[in-house]
């Protein structure tokens, strides 16, 4: 009961700071997702057209992912010339991770498209760019969003690490809570982080539903059609 009343007391008393930290936290987690998608999708398309390039990029991106986030946060200001406390460092670092993770799943997403559909698009007279934007990309949305959902959860938790070097985020509740030996503050940090992760995930699921109206309506029919086809083949 102490915990709950502690949290209930803490939140209204610090609402201003909490709002600001949550805002910073969201900004640092969402921006890398957006940049990550914008960078990874064209790279994945490039990789799909060239096997050697694909090998280099996929291995390279896996290697990038092995760099510890803390090291990246400390190292990036030296490269970018930003202040050590700047949120830009976190955004850039997480964008790099996002690209690294998304590369592979985007290549998979683009490869998952039915070859018949792709051939048909060629036969209809699509130019390569238009085909990529209006056929390949929309059809890869379900796999793409699956990748993005993993990244959104990872980012929400990784942004906290920035607090170690003083970049403002919900992570500050952990560092403060630790130095002040104030568990309630840490608990509030955990709860808000969890809620943020859930909320973002929910939004992504909704986004997928809005962007792929065809996927919802066709599953049952497709299964039935497959069963029918199987019967035709058998007879």
């Amino acid at each position, binding site marked *: 009961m102490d915990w709950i009343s502690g949290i209930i007391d803490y939140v209204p008393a610090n609402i201003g700071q909490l709002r600001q930290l949550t805002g910073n936290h969201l900004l640092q987690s969402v921006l890398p997702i957006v940049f990550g998608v914008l960078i990874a999708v064209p790279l994945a398309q490039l990789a799909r057209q060239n096997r050697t390039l694909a090998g280099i990029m996929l291995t390279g991106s896996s290697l990038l992912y092995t760099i510890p986030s803390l090291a990246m946060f400390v190292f990036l200001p030296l490269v970018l010339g930003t202040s050590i406390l700047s949120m830009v460092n976190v955004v850039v670092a997480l964008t790099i991770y996002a690209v690294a993770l998304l590369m592979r799943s985007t290549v998979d997403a683009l490869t998952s498209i*039915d070859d*018949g*559909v792709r*051939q*048909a*698009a*060629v*036969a*209809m*007279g*699509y*130019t390569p760019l*238009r085909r990529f934007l209006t*056929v390949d990309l*929309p*059809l890869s949305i379900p796999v793409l969003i699956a990748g993005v959902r993993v990244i959104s959860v990872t980012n929400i938790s990784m942004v906290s690490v920035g607090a170690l070097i003083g970049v403002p985020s919900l992570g500050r509740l952990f560092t403060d809570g630790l130095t002040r030996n104030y568990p309630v503050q840490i608990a509030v940090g955990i709860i808000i982080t969890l809620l943020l992760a859930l909320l973002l995930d929910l939004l992504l699921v909704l986004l997928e539903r809005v962007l*792929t*109206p*065809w996927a919802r*309506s*066709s*599953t049952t*029919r*497709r299964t039935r*059609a497959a069963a*029918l*086809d199987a019967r*035709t083949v058998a007879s």
Partner: protein
Amino acid sequence: MTSTEQASTTRPMIEFRDVTKTYDGGQPAVDSLTMDIERGKITVFVGPSGCGKTTSLRMINRMVEPTSGRILLDGQDVAEQKAAELRRSMGYVMQSSGLMPHRTVLDNIATVPRLNGVARSTARARAKELLDVVGLAPELGRRYPGQLSGGQQQRVGVARALAADPPVLLMDEPFSAVDPVVRAELQSELIRLQRDLAKTIVFVTHDIDEATILGDRVAVFAVGGRLAQFADPEEILRAPVDDFVAGFVGRDRGFRHLSFQEGEDVTIHPIETIETGRLADPSVTVNSPWTLLVDAEGRPHGWVPEATRESVTSQADAVPGGSLYTRGDSLRRALDASLSSPSGLGVTVDDDGRVVGVVRAAEVFELIEAGRLDRGRANYNTAV
């Protein structure tokens, strides 16, 4: 009409000129193909798998580039045209329909007009008309392809190919993935459509039956990409040029060929009939070994054998009949009607389905023999 315009309409729509396609230095997939594809006709490429029929088709719209040789479309070398624009000038229908799963049926049909820059509303209005042309209900336009049956998807595929009203349609085994009943339906619809549209259609299939049903001209390809024979379907069946073609057109080709022989001269014999309403009355006797059961409109409903007349008191007791021969149809139908009939007499009906008499297998054979003699003489005369 000026003389140049005349020349362009009599010129073949598509010309293959010594076209060869080799993949990575292996055996040629298509081996020095030279052929003319006539304007406004259905030309069928048929052959076993690996004979280069699909490769040949895809070289027309540059989905495959030839290793050597030239392909002319309306006199223009396709290699000199922009691939995407060339493809939009031809309709393309493929085996698995290839519809865009993320677009509604209407938007799928509107694909090529949209690529050509036609406004969305205009393209959709045209798509609605095409739904009707291919025999689909207008409400299907709002669905996604995944919500359609295989046969419906193929119809949408055909509508999409027709959307920009291209003079040429390329059809790559379009009906091979649907069940036989739907396939037969789609085939007759295509023939009906072609009667109105008169497109130049190049149709690929591995099914010789489909080839002879649809083709105005049939090109039989042999393994290794060799064009073995290019002729009318009737000629392919009657006079295969070599053992390969003979083997490919198969065992039933003699029977199939009868489809191309008119049955005008078949003798139709009168037949004794009994009306269904009088069956229950035992005093009505039959006087020939087989009496045909008809309803009040004169439509056939099976046979009443003389030997068991007493036991046949209703339509359900009659011996079921065979296939029906519509007067004037081909010899194949006449022969099938007589062979499938329990009495050996092929029931012949008029266009309204009323019995006009019967045909006999033996007499159909006599006609076939007579036809053979006539052709023999004709060949002899031309040879001399």
